[in-house]
């Protein structure tokens, strides 16, 4: 079973990276290429046979390959402030030097950004548009605070317009049945992933697996094999020993640290066990709705960071409760102020740590260690 999980992952990764310069070796992509931000309705692109790539994901890969520092420096040398999101600084450096662990992604034919995660990503996409001189499409998702009917009409019109433009780009016609099937694939992937994520509190597993393997939900959620991959993973996890009760259950509130081998500060958390994470729930999109367009609206307008603070608080409290965590490590991420503010009202003791998910030099490890020790003292005293 382990072998077939590995084979499936390898196949998906090979398919995803095949047109990156390291593997393509000058060969041009067969399909049109879109660069997308993390919450773009990729089901539409998949239905029209357009390849899509996630620069943010690649930044994570770069950091994981210990290759981010020179690229961050390059980006700053090109006058992009180091105060900007490190995903963008890392990738801009990669594109400028044309260097990366897998080379560079294939040149885009179109750039598609959304604001259902933050407002910085579409801004970054603007500088990519200047670099590549290709069309930029920004999809505007008003979020939970706007009247639902108004938002649905607005978003649906944008989706229809996106389809029309992508049909023109690809030369293909959208088959509604194909789109519906792809959305159904995404729903299945999400359903299976949720079961995998739900294993974290109860089994002796590191969150590393979840932090790394959610990448398939991001890059391949509407592919048929993703749900099967997650089903097999869950079955494998369920064979593992039950989680011990000797460590302090803690909630990891924030991004994985991509540069770290474990993706979290494992060396500082030896007395703790991570039983929950909000990050691993972000791509558990809700595709409910009567038809394809309503499903896409529901999924992409109501992403976690597009909800009201009140709703986010409620969701977060529920996640923490379900995880059994008695405390949290809360990350002030230099690259994402939108995420930090989620942690405002969680009512359990927290160690707040200043980090960056890409730049390993940003974290003061001594200070982080002290914060976590204080947290431990508070929990043990209580």
């Amino acid at each position, binding site marked *: 079973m382990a072998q077939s999980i590995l084979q499936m992952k390898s196949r998906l990764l090979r398919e995803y990276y095949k047109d990156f310069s390291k593997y393509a070796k000058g060969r041009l992509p067969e399909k049109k290429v879109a660069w997308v931000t993390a919450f773009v309705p990729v089901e539409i692109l998949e239905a029209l046979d357009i390849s899509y790539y996630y620069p943010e994901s690649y930044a994570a890969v770069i950091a994981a390959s210990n290759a981010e520092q020179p690229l961050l420096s390059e980006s*700053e*040398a090109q*006058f992009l402030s180091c105060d900007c999101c490190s995903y963008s600084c890392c990738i801009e450096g990669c594109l400028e030097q044309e260097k990366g662990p897998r080379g560079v992604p294939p040149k885009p034919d179109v750039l598609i950004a959304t604001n259902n995660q933050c407002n910085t990503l579409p801004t970054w996409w603007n500088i990519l548009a200047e670099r590549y001189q290709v069309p930029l499409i920004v999809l505007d998702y008003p979020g939970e605070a706007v009247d639902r009917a108004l938002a649905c009409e607005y978003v649906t019109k944008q989706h229809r317009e996106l389809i029309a433009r992508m049909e023109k780009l690809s030369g293909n016609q959208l088959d509604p049945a194909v789109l519906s099937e792809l959305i159904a694939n995404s729903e299945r992937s999400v359903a299976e992933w949720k079961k995998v994520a739900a294993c974290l509190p109860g089994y002796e597993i590191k969150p590393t697996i979840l932090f790394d393997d959610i990448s398939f939900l991001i890059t391949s959620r509407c592919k048929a094999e993703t749900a099967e991959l997650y089903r097999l993973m869950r079955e494998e996890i369920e064979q593992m020993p039950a989680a011990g009760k000797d460590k302090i259950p803690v909630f990891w509130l924030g991004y994985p640290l991509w540069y770290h081998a474990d993706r979290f500060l494992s060396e500082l958390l030896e007395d703790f066990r991570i039983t929950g994470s909000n990050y691993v729930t972000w791509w558990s999109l809700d595709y409910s709705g009567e038809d394809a367009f309503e499903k896409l609206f529901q999924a992409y307008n109501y992403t976690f960071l597009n909800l009201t603070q009140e709703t986010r608080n409620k969701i977060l409290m529920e996640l923490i409760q379900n995880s059994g965590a008695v405390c949290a490590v809360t990350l002030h991420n230099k690259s994402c102020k939108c995420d930090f503010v989620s942690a405002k009202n969680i009512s359990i003791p927290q160690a707040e740590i200043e980090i960056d998910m890409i730049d390993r030099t940003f*974290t*003061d*490890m*001594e200070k982080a260690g002290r914060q976590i020790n204080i947290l431990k003292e508070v929990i043990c005293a209580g």
Partner: protein
Amino acid sequence: MCRIGIDVGSTYTKYCVMDESGAIVDLLSERTPIRQKEYFSAKQEKLSQRYGDACIVSCGYGKRNVPGFKNINELTALARGVFYSEPESDVVLDIGGQDTKVILQSDGQLKRFFLNDRCAAGSGAFLANTAALLETEFEKIDLTDAKCPKTRLSSVCAVFAQSEIVELIAENTPAEEIIKAVIWQILVQAKALLGKIGSSSVLLSGGLTRIPGIGQYAQRALECECRVPENGNFLSAIGCALCAADQM
């Protein structure tokens, strides 16, 4: 009539006296006073008694307190001074008391410049404050044959860096090691500025050039060739004196 350039820095004021032929007669340095207007008025008298009539041009932090012919921008002065002293050097890294800057000069003209917009942990004042905390005299700092520091600071903010230093002291880290770490941090923070100009060779200027061995140490930190001019602390004052000559 001689020419006097005065660079009023945040910590030290540097003077360059040139004779009519443009040769440097004297280079002087003293701590920048607090009551600057009064002080420099009296100073002008003293300079006049010592060197005769002079055309004075000033630059720097307190330049407006110097009664002189005019005052100019310190980066412009630096460009002139560098071209006079080290004409082959176009890229200059100046670590001053309050700022760190990189300039590109060509034929004595300022062409490009970048200022450190991060915190004061990237400037000379941070070193001065640390030395004071450690009761170490600046003049006793020696980096000759110094290797990379074993201790590294992680903070780019002076406030946080200060607390890191307090902890290092509490951990009995030798003062010499802390000083090395501070200087390393100042240099590493300057790397981002150098990246914007893109040069494999840089001339150092400012107060840090007085430290023996700084050239080699900086080379390790900055990963590029670093040269230390003979009067590295006086380049802006020299530039001012040259500008005074232009006016005459």
